[in-house]
C-alpha cells in the first residue's frame, strides 16, 4: 500500500518492500492530506509548490543539536533564489497542508534496482546482520533503526559497508558505518537523541556531532576515536544550501563513483542499486571492477573531489586484488575518459575560488593520495589528462 492508498505491486510502477505503515495512515484518514506524523517526501506539494528537500536552520543555544522544529522544507524556486524559508516551514508539522504525492523511495524503484541480499551472495544477510546487530555493533543501533523505520523513514547502510561486504570483506574489516535515510537532520536527532539518552548507559556517553556545513550527524565512542555511526539524509545536488531529500537516484548521482551508490536495507535485507550500475561495476562475483563517476559534476571542487577519490580506489584496488570470487581490477577507462575531458583550467578555476577552496581540496587529497608521492602515482595520473596532472602537481608540491 503506498502513501495514496494504492496497493503496491511490481507492475504498478514500483517494486520492493512494502511502504511503512505510518505512511499508509495518510490514506486511511481520507483524501491525500498529510497525517500529522507521516514523513514529508521529495515531490510532495505545499501550496502547489514541489518539495525539493530539507535544510536545517542552525540557531539556538550552544551545544544544542537540531530538532525536527529546525528542519525546513525547501520548495521549488527556494533552492536557487532568495533566503532560506523561515522555520515555520517545518517538515513534520501537522498544520502544514502537504499533498502527499511524492513517491516513497521504494515506489521509485524498478525490479532491477532491488535485490534480496542472499540472492546476490549466500550468507550476505548474515554478514550485514553481524555488522548491524552483532557483538561489535553499537548497542543503540538496533533500536535507532527500529524507531526511525517505525516512524515511516527509510534507513540504509551506504558507502563502504555494502560495497565491501558484497566484494567479500568480513564484517570486522568494514570501516566506519555510513548510513543514509529519508529523515532530515533534525528529525533524525529527535529520534537518535532519545535513543542514546534512554536505552543504555554506554550509548548515553557517546558524543554526538552535527555539521551545519554538510548536515552529517555523527555518533562517536566516548574516547572520540573513529565514528560509531555517520548519518546523512539522501543527497540532492544543485542547491545553494546544504540539503537532503528522499530521492534515491538523486542521492546516487551526487556520490563519487557508481560502486559507492549501493544501499542496504537492514530491516528488509535487500540491496538497492538505484542507478542499476553499481553491482555490474563492482563485479562482486568475479571479473574486473569498473571505476565510473556516478554523476556529471561541473563544479570544480566537486570535480576535484571525484577525481581524487577515483584515484584513491584506482590505487587501492590495483594493489589489493582478490575479493569475492577473485574479482580483479580495476578497469578505470570510464574514469580516465571523464578525467581527460575535464577543463584544462581546472586548477585556475580553483584559484579563482581562493585559498579556502584549495584548503578544502587539500583536505580531500589528504585522505585519498599517499603521503609521499611516488613514481607509480605520477604514472597513473599521467593517463588522466592535463587537468588531473596539474591538480595532483599542485597538491603534492610538484609544480604549479
Amino acid at each position: 500500500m503506498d502513501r495514496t492508498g494504492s496497493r503496491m505491486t511490481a507492475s504498478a510502477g514500483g517494486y520492493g518492500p512494502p511502504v511503512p505503515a505510518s505512511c499508509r495512515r495518510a490514506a486511511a484518514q481520507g483524501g491525500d492530506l498529510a497525517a500529522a506524523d507521516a514523513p514529508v517526501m521529495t515531490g510532495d506539494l505545499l501550496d502547489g509548490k514541489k518539495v525539493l528537500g530539507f535544510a536545517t536552520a542552525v540557531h539556538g543555544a550552544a551545544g544544542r543539536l537540531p530538532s525536527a522544529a529546525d528542519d525546513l522544507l525547501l520548495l521549488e524556486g527556494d533552492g536557487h533564489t532568495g533566503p532560506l524559508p523561515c522555520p515555520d516551514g517545518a517538515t513534520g508539522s501537522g498544520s502544514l497542508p502537504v499533498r502527499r504525492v511524492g513517491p516513497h523511495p521504494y515506489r521509485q524503484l524498478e525490479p532491477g534496482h532491488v535485490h534480496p541480499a542472499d540472492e546476490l551472495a549466500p550468507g550476505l544477510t548474515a554478514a550485514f546482520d553481524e555488522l548491524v546487530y552483532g557483538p561489535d555493533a553499537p548497542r543503540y543501533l538496533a533500536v535507532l533503526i527500529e524507531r526511525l523505520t517505525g516512524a515511516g523513514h527509510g534507513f540504509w547502510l551506504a558507502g563502504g559497508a555494502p560495497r565491501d561486504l558484497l566484494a567479500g570483506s568480513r564484517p570486522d574489516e568494514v570501516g566506519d558505518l555510513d548510513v543514509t535515510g529519508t529523515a532530515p537532520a533534525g528529525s533524525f536527532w529527535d529520534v537518535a537523541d532519545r535513543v542514546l539518552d534512554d536505552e543504555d548507559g554506554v550509548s548515553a556517553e557517546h558524543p554526538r556531532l552535527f555539521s551545519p556545513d554538510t548536515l552529517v550527524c555523527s555518533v562517536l565512542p566516548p574516547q572520540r576515536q573513529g565514528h560509531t555511526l555517520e548519518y546523512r539524509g539522501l543527497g540532492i545536488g544543485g542547491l545553494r544550501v546544504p540539503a537532503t531529500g528522499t530521492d534515491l537516484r538523486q542521492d546516487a548521482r551526487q556520490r563519487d563513483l557508481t560502486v559507492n551508490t549501493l544501499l542496504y536495507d537492514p530491516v528488509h535485507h535487500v540491496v538497492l542499486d538505484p542507478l542499476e550500475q553499481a553491482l555490474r561495476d563492482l563485479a562482486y562475483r568475479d571479473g574486473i571492477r569498473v571505476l565510473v563517476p556516478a554523476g556529471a559534476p561541473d563544479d570544480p571542487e566537486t570535480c576535484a573531489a571525484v577525481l581524487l577519490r577515483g584515484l584513491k580506489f584506482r590505487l587501492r584496488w590495483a594493489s589489493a586484488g582478490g575479493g569475492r570470487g577473485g574479482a580483479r581490477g580495476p578497469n578505470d577507462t570510464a574514469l580516465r575518459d571523464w578525467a581527460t575531458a575535464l577543463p584544462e583550467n581546472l586548477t585556475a578555476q580553483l584559484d579563482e575560488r581562493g585559498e579556502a577552496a584549495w584548503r578544502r581540496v587539500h583536505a580531500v587529497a589528504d585522505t585519498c593520495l599517499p603521503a609521499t608521492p611516488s613514481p607509480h602515482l605520477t604514472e597513473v595520473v599521467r593517463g588522466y589528462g592535463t587537468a588531473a596532472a596539474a591538480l595532483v602537481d599542485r597538491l603534492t608540491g610538484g609544480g604549479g
Partner: protein
Amino acid sequence: MNSVAQQEDTVAVHRPLSSWIAVLEPRSPGAHPTLGVINDGDERADARDMVRFRTVAWVRTSVIIDRDGQPCRVLALRAPDRSVVIELDDVGRPVAVSADGADLVAELEVRWAGLPAAPGTVAQLRRESLELRYFLLFRIGRETAAPAELFHCLPWERVESAARTAAALLTPGGTPPVPADDAGRPPGGSIGRAPAEEQLRHWFTPAALSLAGPLSVLRNGLLVGRAGPWFSREAAALLTGLLAVEPARLPASTRSALSVLADRLGTDQALRHSARLAAARLTGPAPTAHLDLTLTARLDSDFVLRASSGAPQETGALLEQGLVTADVAVTPGGAVVVELEISPTTDSPVRTTADDGPLCHPVTVTLIGVTAQVGSQVRYWMMLDRTDEGLYGFLAMPAPEGQFEVGLDAPPVALRFLDRVPHRELLASLHANEHIGPSHWHTIIDELPPRHPAHAALAAYEAQLPS
C-alpha cells in the same frame, strides 16, 4: 622519541582542544569576518592531529566574532602569519571563552607536563563554557598525569541531582527531590522524563567512564517506570564505573551522593557486595580502606605442583564479605575451582535484578608475579542459581601457571545483557560452569533473543562435548 617528534613537541605547545576548527576568513574593511567550513571539509579529522598544528608554532588567543547576531569572545589560535582559526564545539559553533579563560588555557598548555590544580584554577574553569571544560579535560585526561582536582570544574551538581533522584526512587515510598522548576514534569504533577538539559551524556567522561551514562539511564528509567529488562544492566554498569573511577576526581558532595545511591542499589542481594565496596571507595576514611572489603584470592599453581610428595594438596582461600562467601581453590589436577554463595537479605528492594532473568557473576583470573604476561586477565561468567536460600554458583577453570589472583568484586549481570561478550569468553564460561549440563543450558539460553551470541556459544559447546 625521535628528533622529528621531539621537534614537533617543542613547536606544538598550543594546539586545538576541539576536534573541529574553522579558519577565520577576513573580509573587506568594516565587514565581519566569516568562518570557513569545519576542518576545511575534513570533518572526520581531529584538528589536534593536523600537520599544521604540529609543525607551526601557533599562539593561544581569543577573538570577538558575531555569533547569532551578538558579539561573542571565542577560543582561537593564531599562526605566525597572523591567520586565525576558531575552535568549534560538536555542533559547529565557536567555543565561547572569557578573556581570563583564554589566558588560563594558554598557561595550562605551557605547563602541560605539570598542570596546576589550585582552587583558583578550578574556579576560573567553572566560569567557562561546558564545551571548553569538556574539551580541555578530555585532552588533559588523554595526554597528561592529570591532577584529580581539575576535574572538579565539571557541573557535578547535575550528577548529584541525578543520584539523589535515583536513590529516592529506589527507596520504598520515596519520592524524587522536587526540581527547582517544574519544567521537567508533565501536567498533573506525575513523574516524567528528565528534560534534555538535565541529561548527563558525555560531559563527564573525561573524569570517568561508565558513570554518568548508566546513572542517567537509571534515573530516566526509574522516573518513567520503564518496562522490560534493563535495570540490572544499568545498575551493574554504574557499580562497575564506581569501582573503577579515581575517587579524587569527584568532589566530596558527588562522592557522598553516589555513595547513598550505591547503598540503595545494595538492597538487592546480588548487588550488595559490589555496592558496599563502591560506597567504601567513594567515602572511606582512607584511600585504601576499601581494600579490606574485596573478594580476591591470590593463589599459586606451582605451589600445588611442588607439593608432589605425600597426599595431593589443594591451595585455596575462603573469602567472606557480608552476605558473600566464596571458596577458591587450585586442585592438583590443575583447575581453579570457585564456589560462591550469596545469602538472602531482609531488604525488599524497589527494583530487583531478579526481574531481568538469570544472573551471571564475573570471575576474573589475573596473572601476577614475574612473568611475561603479568597483568593479563581472563574473565569467566558464573551462572547464579537463585533459590530461597540465596544465590549459588560454581566454576571450574583451567589454572594458569604460577601466581595469579581470582577476583569476585564486579557486579553480576543478567545473561541476556552479555550480548557484547566475545564468543570465546562465552564458550569458555559454558565449559567452566561444570554443574550445568546441556539440557539446563538450553532451558536458560533458548529463551534469549535470537541474535544473542549465547546461541552460537551453546552450539559450539555441545559440539565440543565428548560423544
